[in-house]
């Protein structure tokens, strides 16, 4: 299925491809197709997803609908014209306003803004300031925007090769005098990127804000524009010079939340308000018109502060999500394959079963650094409470208190980029850089309302979700 990028029959294979060839038409041909029932379909032949079958030709009809015609039923296709889709957004120059702060938007992939080509139905990403201005004109009232596209990957494909250049790019932009940095990012692994950047970029003088959307920007109900407005405002005017995630607070169009990069997690596969600060409260509420800081415990904006870019990363680290009955050979296999660090997401206060002990012991003896986080996400690994925990401590597994498992993974990658010396690794792991371990869990840091209870129902009936 390796078709060239400029394939005139894009996505078509097998019978459907043969049919198009037979009738001498291509993708983007404007056609009049007649089937065996005498029905006439006039419109544009669209590219076909390669994952779909090879039995149908897709037409976008004049009324805007798409339909697939089975190749066996096609009697005639007459080409009426040809017009290729233009995958480009007409730019409007982003207005420069001398009084406004400078914000740099770094692109990693995905779309923050986009436009639709109605003729073909294609979604075309908008990224340059000019394109973004066309899509979200409000940005021009907030800042002077520059954009830099670093990569074009979906967030699940982010890894070492992206994290290091991203951290370096942030350093460059700070050096160039940006008043704030926004990073457009897919939401799936935004939490991971926020965590690693929290370690790689320290003592930032300005806010570093990751933003994305849960409803793509080609939809009228998208959260993308409002998220972007909130993020750009936080970067331009916010007082918190840390790595943060800025996404919807509630699912209603009301305000965004700024979450600390090390303490934030995507908690729903599709809700707008998917990002939640775990084990603490968010830093700030941000809306179109105001900031409501929820804490004073943050690094304030200070343009004189010198940023430290420490972009190292060893990706021979994994996360072991413990489950009852886990076999020790899993641990052996990791050691054998050369993994240098294992983050266990243990049960409860940080436990695994007894049959795993010898394998973990062997791993540690062979120089693998094993740390413990909790799969409950909320709460601390407190391995001195039960025998199991004490046994694991004896083996040499180091508890990471209330560090989130994904944050622990990213931090171990970063630490192992500096040293392999066990004691130093563990000292660094246990020394918080950016609140990845906190001393106190406030009682409002764990709020998962349970629907159905009278008090919850009272709350959700009287507040916008």
């Amino acid at each position, binding site marked *: 299925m390796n078709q060239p990028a400029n394939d005139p029959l894009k996505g078509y294979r097998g019978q459907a491809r043969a049919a198009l060839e037979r009738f001498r038409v291509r993708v983007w041909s404007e056609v009049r197709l007649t*089937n065996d*029932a*005498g029905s*006439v*379909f006039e419109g544009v032949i669209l590219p076909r997803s390669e994952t*779909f*079958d090879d*039995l*149908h030709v*897709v037409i*976008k*009809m*004049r*009324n*805007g*609908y*798409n*339909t*697939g*015609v*089975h190749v066996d*039923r096609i009697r005639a296709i007459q080409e009426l014209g040809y017009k290729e889709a233009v995958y480009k*957004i*007409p730019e*409007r120059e982003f207005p420069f306003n001398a009084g406004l702060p400078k914000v740099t938007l770094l692109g990693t992939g995905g779309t923050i803004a*986009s*436009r*639709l*080509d*109605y*003729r073909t*139905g294609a*979604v075309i990403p*908008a990224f340059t300031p000019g394109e973004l201005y*066309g*899509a979200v004109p409000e940005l021009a009232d907030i800042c002077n925007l520059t954009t830099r596209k670093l990569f074009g990957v979906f967030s699940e494909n982010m890894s070492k090769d992206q994290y290091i250049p991203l951290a370096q790019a942030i350093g460059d932009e700070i050096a160039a005098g940006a008043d704030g940095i926004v990073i457009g990012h897919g939401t799936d692994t935004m939490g991971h990127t926020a965590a690693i950047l929290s370690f790689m970029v320290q003592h930032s003088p300005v806010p570093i804000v990751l933003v994305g959307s*849960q*409803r*793509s*920007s*080609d*939809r*009228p*109900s*998208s959260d993308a*524009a409002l998220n972007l407005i909130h993020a750009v405002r936080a970067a331009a005017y916010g007082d918190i010079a840390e790595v943060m995630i800025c996404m919807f607070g509630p*699912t*209603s*169009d*009301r305000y965004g939340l700024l979450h600390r990069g090390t303490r934030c997690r995507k908690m*729903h*596969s*599709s*809700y*707008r308000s998917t990002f939640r600060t775990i084990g603490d409260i968010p830093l700030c509420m941000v809306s179109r018109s105001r900031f409501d800081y929820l804490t004073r415990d943050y690094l304030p904006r200070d343009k004189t502060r010198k940023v430290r870019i420490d972009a190292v990363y060893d990706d021979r680290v994994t996360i072991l999500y413990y489950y009852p009955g886990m076999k020790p050979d899993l641990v052996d296999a990791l050691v054998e394959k050369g993994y240098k660090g294992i983050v266990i997401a243990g049960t409860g206060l940080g436990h695994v079963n007894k049959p795993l002990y010898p394998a973990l012991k062997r791993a540690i003896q062979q120089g693998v650094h094993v740390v413990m986080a909790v799969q409950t996400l909320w709460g601390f690994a407190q391995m001195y409470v039960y025998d199991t925990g004490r046994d694991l401590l004896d083996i040499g597994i180091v508890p990471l208190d209330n560090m989130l498992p994904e944050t622990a993974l990213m931090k171990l990658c970063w630490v192992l980029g500096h040293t392999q010396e066990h004691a130093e690794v563990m000292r660094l792991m246990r020394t918080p850089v950016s609140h990845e371990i906190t001393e106190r869990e406030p009682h409002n840091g764990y709020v998962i309302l349970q629907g159905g209870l009278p008090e919850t*129902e009272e709350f*959700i*009936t009287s507040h*916008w*979700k």
Partner: protein
Amino acid sequence: MESTIERIDYAEVGLMAGLEVHQQLLTRRKLFCKCPAGLYTTKHDGEILRHMRPTLSELGEYDGTALMEFKTKKNIIYLLHESNVCTYEMDDTPPFLMNDEALDVAVEQCLMLGCDIVDEVHVARKQYLDGSIPTGFQRTAIVGVNGKLPFAGRSLGIIQVSVEEDSCREVTDRGHLIVWRTDRLGMPLIETVTAPELRTPDEVAEAILLIGRVCRTTRHVRVGLGASRQDVNVSVRGGRRVEIKGVPKAGWARRLVHGEAIRQVNLLRLQRELARRGVSKTSDLKIEHRDVTRLLASSQYPHFRAESWDAFVQQDKRRPGFELGEGPFCVRAVKLCGLAGTLAWPTQPYHDFSHELAGRVRVIAGLDQQPILVSSDRWPDYADSRRELGRLRKHLRCADGDALVVVWGPEADTVTAAQEIALRYQAALDGVPHETRQPFADGSTDFERILPGPDRMYPDTDHPPVRMTRDRVERLRVALPPPPWEREPRWEAAGIPRQTVRYLIRRGGAELVDLVVRRAQADPRRAGMFFGERWKALRRKGLAVEKIDPERWVELFQAARERPVLWEAQDAIGEALARRPEQPLAETLRELGLDRPVGDWRGTLAERLRGISPPKKAQADGAWLRRAMGAVMPDLRGKVPGREVAEAVRALEPSQNAKGARS
């Protein structure tokens, strides 16, 4: 109203109309999620607040409708109830795969409508920014194309049939806040689009009824309030397609289509009148506006004064940031150079052109305090009103031929209103604008939105195409009931009145008529009248006749073929069957004592009539007979023909004997 054309020749003005008939499908669940369908609520246990934002279209511009709807700056609240919505309806979960049951019913409908079923069903997004769907688009997919219906001695083309999700129900729309209830959202429906081949208001009404009967023939569609709604597209020669949205009844369509035809004819006349005045292009329009709040601060017309606006806001509980627009109270006068008299120009019956402006101002600027605007063509009458108008005209330096329109409300909205008034005049230069209009029971319509075009359609990337195999189509085709145009002439020929025939098809029973004719060789007229008329009576008694197993009816018609006297007990049998719908007929007849021949009823007749006193002179003829029959029939009904009993009873009538004795 002078110069309103109340009568027109539809052929002469080139009336063209077509329908988009929406019919909810009878499925257990919604179209793209597993929520129950048809469960409506009037309460809610959650709310969300959203806004809609247009997406950029091909040239980096916004679609016309989208832009208009964005300008309205609506705050949108959705009311949720746990029983009938999930996170899909909230647009917080992507769609699940399309409900197969709904797709089957949609295919059935397409086949009934004579359509060619498409091979691969592609889900599209049709944008609506009015908030009626939280995603900002309706998921819709074409299932059939190229259909034909026999209609009025010719054929009516069906362009396409699509399956789509229903929208929210509007709760309130005040100022900048619109509130929607989400219970109906996501229910499956089909939209049938006819060719614009209807030529008179009567034809439109008749076509709505016909498509309704076609849809209902399968029994797989919902009935009742709101289960079917139609959009009627109307144009006249030289005019443009205007969509009258959500016509709830065929009966409304006649006046609506008539009214729209007149409206378009009048708008075309206005276009000529404007041209006559030298206003034919946008640059000929001289429209300017000015804040006149201070000038009118002590006006005797209450709407011009800030304190009455404040009272209105307070009384209607309008909150800043929600219902209320931005800025302080403002009265704005719009000067329309050379346009005096055009505001009173007739449009639809009993309305004038200022009503067209008011519709736009209400919807787009969110200024909805009645009467929304006042104009110099029909200046209201109040103390000092003429002098005040004179002051205004002077203030805006109006010449004699100039007109004035005054709007009031939050400042930003009055500016939008002034712009919309200018835009509506621009559209008037071009005759009839493409619009979607909202119908009212009195036959009038009002502006709802600019009619969207194909530019708001794009593929739904959340849903894969669904293959529609010929096997599936054929499986559904063989199970189809006969279409109305096959049944109707057949039954009418058999002597069933047309009204009963239509009732059978619309309300159910048609399939039972065919069943008992086929299986029990029933007389079609007898069967038609039984299921068309007797059923109605039983239903009115609150009996669930539709729950009765069709086999029971076959048994009844078979039994009654041998013993026609059973028909005389049809109500009793019907009631008994409805109470015990699973029980075989023989058993029910046994319980009613209708299963065996009656003994010597004649022998005991005289004995039974003894208690009935002889007729008095004052009584009308037949009174005794009625009482006598009333006494004996309960035991004999369905066993002995009533006629036979009557003869025997009459023979025993005492008055005749008495008369004989006296003579």
